[in-house]
């Protein structure tokens, strides 16, 4: 009897220059696999296991069997007497019910956020807000800002606070209790790296040993940030995964696509939201996909990796690879990006030297 390997549609193969990735989008896992394995699994999408062995040669039977065993063991597929044609591919369409899905706000105690621009912005059903505090803040100063969104449909608030010995986990718990939208808290420049959970273990408080004291700390690419899920994978097929439908209010109250981008669109006290949203410059980078970016287009991680368009390896080339990525899809090695001699000029361009010791 002929046997076939049916691979579930939410387990996606991504081919890279030298290695490939098998992304389990449902279980949020991914597996780094040799390109040979990719070839075999790809072939099995059209052919029986017997045909596959005939095609790649009897010598490879053991290897082929082990690949199939792997897929079945990880429950990413099953063996059947046919390829079930009713198991149709996923349409990786992407859309959201708002022109702005995420907002980053670089908090400045001297600014007043209770203005028309901010009100209009959050009327658009923005889904997530990140409030970044670079400098020490008093919680009771910050709270009115967090509470401003109580009557909005905003779902998630992430707070980034500097380490402050006088703020206890209990204080944070009080904030979260009153504002259940706060779903995660990051403490930067903390004495040690640790993760704690509050509010019945539903909210993570992540302490980071490094400081986040300016937007230049952003844009780092690391395998620990990779995510294998439907949202990112589908958005990545069509849009830029860093800038698409994002908006920021920088430390001085200027509107930007992301706080690290040079271009701004005026001050929140002075501009109309509708005018900003109509400005084609805002959307300039939204359509730049990983598949369009040098090096990334050859990288097997391209649909689990988020992009950065603010710091580029070649600052003048908008299609160049993110500066702060140390991975090479050609050698499959991770290097410390800031030590790469080829990146020094770009680091000078962005004034990033002071950041690295």
């Amino acid at each position: 009897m002929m046997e076939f390997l049916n691979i579930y549609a939410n387990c996606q193969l991504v081919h890279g220059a030298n290695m490939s990735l098998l992304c389990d989008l449902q279980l949020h896992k991914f597996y780094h696999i040799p390109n040979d394995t990719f070839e075999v699994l790809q072939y099995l999408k059209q052919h029986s296991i017997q045909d596959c062995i005939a095609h790649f040669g009897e010598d490879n039977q053991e290897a082929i069997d082990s690949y199939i065993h792997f897929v079945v063991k990880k429950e990413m597929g099953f063996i059947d007497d046919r390829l079930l044609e009713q198991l149709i591919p996923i349409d990786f369409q992407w859309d959201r019910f708002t022109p702005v899905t995420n907002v980053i706000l670089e908090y400045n105690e001297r600014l007043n956020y209770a203005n028309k621009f901010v009100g209009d912005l959050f009327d658009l059903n923005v889904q997530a807000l990140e409030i970044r505090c670079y400098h020490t803040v008093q919680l009771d100063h910050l709270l009115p800002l967090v509470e401003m969104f109580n009557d909005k449909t905003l779902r998630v608030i992430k707070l980034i606070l500097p380490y402050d010995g006088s703020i206890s986990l209990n204080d944070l718990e009080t904030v979260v209790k009153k504002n259940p939208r706060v779903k995660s808290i990051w403490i930067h420049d903390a004495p040690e790296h640790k993760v704690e959970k509050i509010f019945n273990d539903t909210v993570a408080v992540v302490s980071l040993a490094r400081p986040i004291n300016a937007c230049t700390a952003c844009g780092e690419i690391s395998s620990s940030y990779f995510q294998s899920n439907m949202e990112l994978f589908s958005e990545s097929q069509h849009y830029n995964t860093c800038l698409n439908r994002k908006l920021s209010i920088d430390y001085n109250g200027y509107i930007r696509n992301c706080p690290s981008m040079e271009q701004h669109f005026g001050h929140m006290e002075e501009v109309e939201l509708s005018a900003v949203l109509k400005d084609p410059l805002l959307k300039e980078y939204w359509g730049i996909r990983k598949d369009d970016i040098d090096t990334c287009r050859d990288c097997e991680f391209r649909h689990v990796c988020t992009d950065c368009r603010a710091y580029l390896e070649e600052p003048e080339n908008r299609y160049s690879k993110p500066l702060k990525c140390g991975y090479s899809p050609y050698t499959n090695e991770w290097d410390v990006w800031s030590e790469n001699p080829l990146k020094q000029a770009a680091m000078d361009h962005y004034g990033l030297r002071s950041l690295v010791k």
Partner: protein
Amino acid sequence: MGNKIALLMSRKILILSQAYLETTTDAVCQWLDYYQVPFLRLNGEDLFQWESLDAIPQNEDIAAVWYRRKVFQFPSKYSLKKEHTPTNYTLKRFLIDEFNGLHSLLFHTIDRQKWLNDPVIEDNLNKLHVLMLAKEYGLQIPFTEVVTRKTSVVALLEQHPELIVKPLGECIMVEDENDTKFKMLTVVVNASNLHRMPDQFFPSMVQEKVEKKYEVRAFYLDGAFYSMAIFSQNNQKTKDDFRNYDQERPNRTVPYQLPADVEGKLRKVMQELHFGTGSIDLMVDRHGAYYFLEVNPAGQFGMVSFPCNYYLEKKMAQVLSKAYLYEKEIHQ
């Protein structure tokens, strides 16, 4: 005042839902917002604030109705103080009937053809009737019978190695004195556990147990089907009923295309029931045969939409806005 004028000028979409735990309704409302289609979301909870019958939405203000849910919970001040007294259940039932008496007035004040699903049929759906209807339209259903005696079960077990017992109505949650909740599940009856069955019992629905390869949940909307296959992993816990979720090894849920003839028959069933939308459960056996199981007209479609990337909340909003634009056109 301003509100009244606006109401007179434009018809809205009416969404009947509940205030809590309704991410599906929330998302549809946000899509409608995005399309700038006016809508009124009436949560069952809102009825507790009505001052007069004038508060009820008027037929002429409504372009279309999507009836999703009645209410999540009555306000806590109406919960009964002494728990677990024998009359408690009767009183709860009474309050639910009182609430429904008011809520279902809407079924009569707003023209029936404006409703995505006929609300009266929806609220009085009979599982056995739906099964018979499906059979009538040529769909295969598992052998189904209602029995009251062990001897009948013994006879049936001669033709079918295993049977399952399912409620004729809905599965319920039962609580014991310690507030531990028990969920009613599908139970298998076979020769080995038959001895636990009394000789005579309350009329019960039994069905032939189909050796399933996978299940299919099809969401029907405006004539189209968005289907999902559910493969329960080699996992005993979820074998009989995929609602017994397993967090560790979740079922695989992937997009699925039903054969055209199955879709055609299902479409006829939905039309016969006057349903514009609903979730349909099917089962596929080892030989690839399809068995119709049931229709859930208020189906929670988020569980199909997200895993298959179908954007059903967006499609629902589009269907509702089509109804709104159509109404707007004919009234100008």
